[in-house]
């Protein structure tokens, strides 16, 4: 691709190689959710039967929207836009378009304010595993106390304050800055080329290691890896009658492929105008699904059932993804040969998955500042990361009070689906599905089936609209009213909402001002 004359060299940054684009997009998509969220969702929502709505959602939402976002991104890049605010405005000539697109800048930035902190826990725990810091903590409850002390929620003998966690956060933030300062080809692409193959190697090693656990305790023959795989995969067909299971599957596809974030668009904007998006999108989906279904579906819950049994694992899965990853697995790995190293690799796997996603989340705002405000790349990176650094402090200090969860619910769940729904409606109905599909087919290295045209036009918006309506009906009123939230935590939740509203208003303002330059500077490549 470097030598492709179609790439407007000298005007915008570009990817170095085709493999680099695919690995960077896969790095963005593969995150903590692949290894922690997916197995829990599958086990809770019908086991193997969950894969029916999961694959339906992959075909109705995942693959077509991945193609759509890649095509919108490349189209935007051709028009000089590396951010969805400008891209959506290119698709829809309406004053509101840029504000819809602004969501694709606001959402990843808001999520990054807590995601980088969570990624830093993985780095910390990989070091702790190697040093044997939690050696001897043999129950999940003890590991839970260790995690809480590390996060500064309830200090104990291991950690007197949140300072250790803060130190690892600073290191992770510095790594994020270093990668972003390298730019698209020498920073993000280079990281992806090193981290993603390493992640797959570690994942494959861990999956094989878990399968070799066999029956860890011969006195408890029911607890074995075969039962663990059964816990994830045995189908319960009655679950398919429950609409919540379909919503869970659609949500999982949405989150795992990082659709509705505005990041795929930004990455695809660095493609040349005649570069393929169809194969790139399909390969990204394939790699992500490999990491999620084959590796993610084998490691965590299988190990948990083999050591704790089905009932305890169900309890762990219901209490949350982090309980599984940060409490149950370290206890398990300690009981096995070379447990320190295996634990270290497990958390390194999560760290690589997190870091490649973290750098992606900062890039849309960097692109907006760079291209629409003419801020030099270095200064844009430092500005965005400085703001992220400042905004992570309430996340660190209010851990245990629901601040992080509140950001995650509104930005990391509802916000993504809202933006995904709006962009698919604009692409298929306003820009027009015929023109849109031509964009997907343009330069394609594989021919995407036209069956996906009516799917993208009708089924995808209906599916996403249905999810939004279900949420509005079932969850949002109770969330807004802060039902079941302890009185002492309400201030933290209100604080999170104020921060989100302020960030959204600031993004709108930045986009409004930036749009005044779109006709003059950045968009000079339109014609």
């Amino acid at each position: 691709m470097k030598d492709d004359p179609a790439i407007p060299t000298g005007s915008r940054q570009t990817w170095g190689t085709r493999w680099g684009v695919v690995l960077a997009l896969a790095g963005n998509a593969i995150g903590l959710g692949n290894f922690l969220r997916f197995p829990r969702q599958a086990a809770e929502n019908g086991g193997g039967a969950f894969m029916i709505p999961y694959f339906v959602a992959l075909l109705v939402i995942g693959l077509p929207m991945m193609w759509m976002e890649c095509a919108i991104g490349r189209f935007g890049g051709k028009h000089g836009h590396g951010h969805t605010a400008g891209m959506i405005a290119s698709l829809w000539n309406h004053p509101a378009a840029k504000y819809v697109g602004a969501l694709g800048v606001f959402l990843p930035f808001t999520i990054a304010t807590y995601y980088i902190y969570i990624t830093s826990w993985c780095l910390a725990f990989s070091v702790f595993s190697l040093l044997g810091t939690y050696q001897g903590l043999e129950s999940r409850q003890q590991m839970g106390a260790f995690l809480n002390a590390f996060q500064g929620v309830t200090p104990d003998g291991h950690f007197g304050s949140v300072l250790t966690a803060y130190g690892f956060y600073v290191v992770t933030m510095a790594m994020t800055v270093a990668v972003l300062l390298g730019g698209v080809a020498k920073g993000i692409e280079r990281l992806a080329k090193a981290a993603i193959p390493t992640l797959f190697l570690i994942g494959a090693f861990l999956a094989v290691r878990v399968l070799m656990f066999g029956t860890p305790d011969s006195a408890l023959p029911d607890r074995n890896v075969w039962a663990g795989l059964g816990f994830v995969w045995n189908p319960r067909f009655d679950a398919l009658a429950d609409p919540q299971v379909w919503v869970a599957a659609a949500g999982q596809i949405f989150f795992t492929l990082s659709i509705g974030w505005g990041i795929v668009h930004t990455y695809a904007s660095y493609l040349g105008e005649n570069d393929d998006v169809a194969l790139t999108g399909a390969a990204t989906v394939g790699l992500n699904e490999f990491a999620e279904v084959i590796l993610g579906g084998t490691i965590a819950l299988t190990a948990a059932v083999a050591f704790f049994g089905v009932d305890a694992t169900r309890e762990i899965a219901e209490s949350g993804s982090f309980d599984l990853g940060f409490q149950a697995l370290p206890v398990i790995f300690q009981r096995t040969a070379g447990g320190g190293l295996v634990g270290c690799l497990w958390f390194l796997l999560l760290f690589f998955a997190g870091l490649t996603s973290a750098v992606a989340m900062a890039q849309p705002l960097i692109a907006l500042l760079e291209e629409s405000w003419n801020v030099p790349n270095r200064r844009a990176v430092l500005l965005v990361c400085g703001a992220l650094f400042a905004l992570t402090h309430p996340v660190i200090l209010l851990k245990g009070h629901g601040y992080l969860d509140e950001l995650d619910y509104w930005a990391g769940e509802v916000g993504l689906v809202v933006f995904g729904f709006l962009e698919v409606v604009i692409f298929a109905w306003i820009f027009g599905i015929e023109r849109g599909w031509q964009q997907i087919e343009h330069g394609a290295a594989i021919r995407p089936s036209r069956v996906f045209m009516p799917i993208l036009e009708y089924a995808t918006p209906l599916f996403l609209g249905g999810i939004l309506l279900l949420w509005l009906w079932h969850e949002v009123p109770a969330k807004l009213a802060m039902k079941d939230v302890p009185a002492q935590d309400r201030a933290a939740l209100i604080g999170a909402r104020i921060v989100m509203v302020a960030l959204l208003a600031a993004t709108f303002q930045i986009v409004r001002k930036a749009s005044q330059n779109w006709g003059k500077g950045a968009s000079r490549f339109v014609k």
Partner: protein
Amino acid sequence: MTTAGSIFMAVSWGAIFGLNIYCLWHLFRSE
């Protein structure tokens, strides 16, 4: 794991392996 569970796992894994082989084949071919 039940037979049905094994079938679901095998079919899911097969579909994902298939997609990856298809994409890798085309990626290598277009290099």
